[in-house]
């Protein structure tokens, strides 16, 4: 059975990664149309010459990092609190936020921000995007940490209290270190979700806060050049490497 399972897994991985392979191959295509016409590195060169790409990548990075930090902290705290004693209302709304269709989320956040513009004199910008990203990524973090917490015994914290620590110290020095791998995994998940988001971001982004997915989307819908293939290939390589490195660090 194990052999069949392995073969099957290989087939599914092929299914999941085939589009990536296609993208990578065509990022080296000299023609801009999807007809192979020779090997070329023009598109990779074009990436580094495109100022808009650079800026949007930078914006995406800032947003993703900020949103991840906030949502990981808030989400970890929330998962811990819910582990102590649940709250149907909070769990329910976290769930709802997770499964809300993106377009509904985007529209409602845009509505909120535009309504708030009457009182707070601000506009759409990086800050609104970060706020929106935290809104939809918190639930991912909570679920990830909650799953981890289910295998954690409360007896350890009780022991710490018996030894004279207060509740905060028990959390800080006993639970938190044990949760660390889960927190890293949750942060990685939040980072991915934030970095790749298009629908919600495009609605709440301002003039100066174009993100990489927005630029890619605009290029792709125009049926434009394989620059997007090159970008995607680069992203996969970079993040794949990041993942491998973090695995090595974790294993050691």
């Amino acid at each position, binding site marked *: 059975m194990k052999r069949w399972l392995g073969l099957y897994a290989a087939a599914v991985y092929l299914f999941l990664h085939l589009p990536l392979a296609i993208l990578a191959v065509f990022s080296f295509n000299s023609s801009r149309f999807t*007809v192979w016409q020779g090997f070329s590195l023009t598109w990779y060169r074009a990436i580094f010459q495109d100022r808009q790409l650079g800026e949007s990548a930078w914006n995406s990075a800032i947003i993703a990092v900020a949103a991840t*930090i906030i949502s990981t902290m808030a989400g970890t705290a929330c998962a811990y609190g819910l582990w102590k004693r649940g709250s149907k209302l909070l769990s329910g709304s976290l769930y709802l936020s997770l499964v809300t269709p993106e377009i509904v989320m985007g529209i409602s956040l845009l509505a909120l921000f535009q309504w708030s513009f009457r009182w707070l004199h601000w506009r759409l910008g990086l800050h609104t995007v970060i706020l929106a990203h935290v809104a939809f990524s918190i639930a991912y973090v909570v679920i990830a940490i909650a799953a981890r917490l289910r295998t954690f015994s409360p007896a350890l914290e009780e022991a710490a209290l018996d030894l004279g620590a207060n509740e905060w110290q028990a959390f800080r020095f006993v639970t938190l270190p044990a949760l660390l791998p889960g927190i890293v995994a949750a942060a990685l998940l939040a980072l991915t979700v934030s970095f790749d988001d298009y629908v919600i971001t495009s609605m709440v982004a301002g*003039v100066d806060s174009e993100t990489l997915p927005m630029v890619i989307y605009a290029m792709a819908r125009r049926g434009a050049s394989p620059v997007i293939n090159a970008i995607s290939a680069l992203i996969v390589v970079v993040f794949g490497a990041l993942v491998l490195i973090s695995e090595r660090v974790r294993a050691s």
Partner: protein
Amino acid sequence: MKQRLNRRTFLMGVAGLAGCARGRPRLNVYNWSNYVAPDTIANFEAEFGVRVRYATYESNEEMLAKVLSGNSGWDVVFPTHNRIQPMRQYRLLAPIDHARLPNLPNLEPRFQSPPWDPRLEYCVPYMWGATGIAYNRSVALAPAAWADLWSARFKGRLTMLDDPEEVLGACLLKLRLSYNSTDVASLRRAEREAIAQKPLLRAYLNAEYRDQLVAGDILVAHSWATTAQQAIDAAPQLGFAYPAEGFPLYGDNAVVLRESGRAELAHQFINYLLRAPVAAAIVQTSRTATANAAAQALLPEALRSNTTLFPTAGTLARGQWIATMPGATQRLRDRMWTEIKSA
């Protein structure tokens, strides 16, 4: 808790700094994609010592959704002509100061007083275009009229635009009715035509049909002239036809938003776009038809006499400017579009 707030404030500060200009004046321009040449913006920045935030959109609605709030941050946008009047109604537009646009006479005479703004009080025509039929010359009889798109010989190799206005418009023209008809009975007839055509269609596509025409997946496509020209550049066996029953015309205009505090710079930008060499360069790279007569004179012969982008006067006479749709008709058309798609 405190630690969290500090970190967040810090990060927002960094974000704010990153977005801050390096001291040069700023201009925010929101345009259609593929409407400038690669160096148009850079040259403007260099010559005028400003920094331009340039972003693109794919539809008027996308742009309007941002601009309607009156607080979008954009200075110059490019609405299609039939959105000008509603934008004026919503008090979104700043008046155009002709004194600041010495290059205005470069425009073609018909764009100096277009039907949607005869005195150019609020807009400056930029590029214009039309919708027609792009096709592969290998088909036995080249399509020359909208009626040809209902022919069974193209079954499965035909696409229409994914745009309710364009599709219903094509149906209306096929029935020899006006593209801008608001008559309910006429619209119903058009809807029936669209539903009858659906089994012949491959798909409703707005952008992907270009690549598919080039690759040969499809033979005939409902297409904008600009996109067709881009496809023809890549595959000379393709052609474009302005249908015999008539076709819609649209004009994209530069406007200055009322919310913008940079009217002076905005006018300088528009004046820059009106320069003949600048407009000519844009046409060369993006294959769009410019409203700028002086620029047309600078184009190479092949492009100037290109009938896809610049049809003859006789052909042009069959064209109809798209009208602004009244609210009630809009509702009806939207519902019809849902019905057509669900059929």
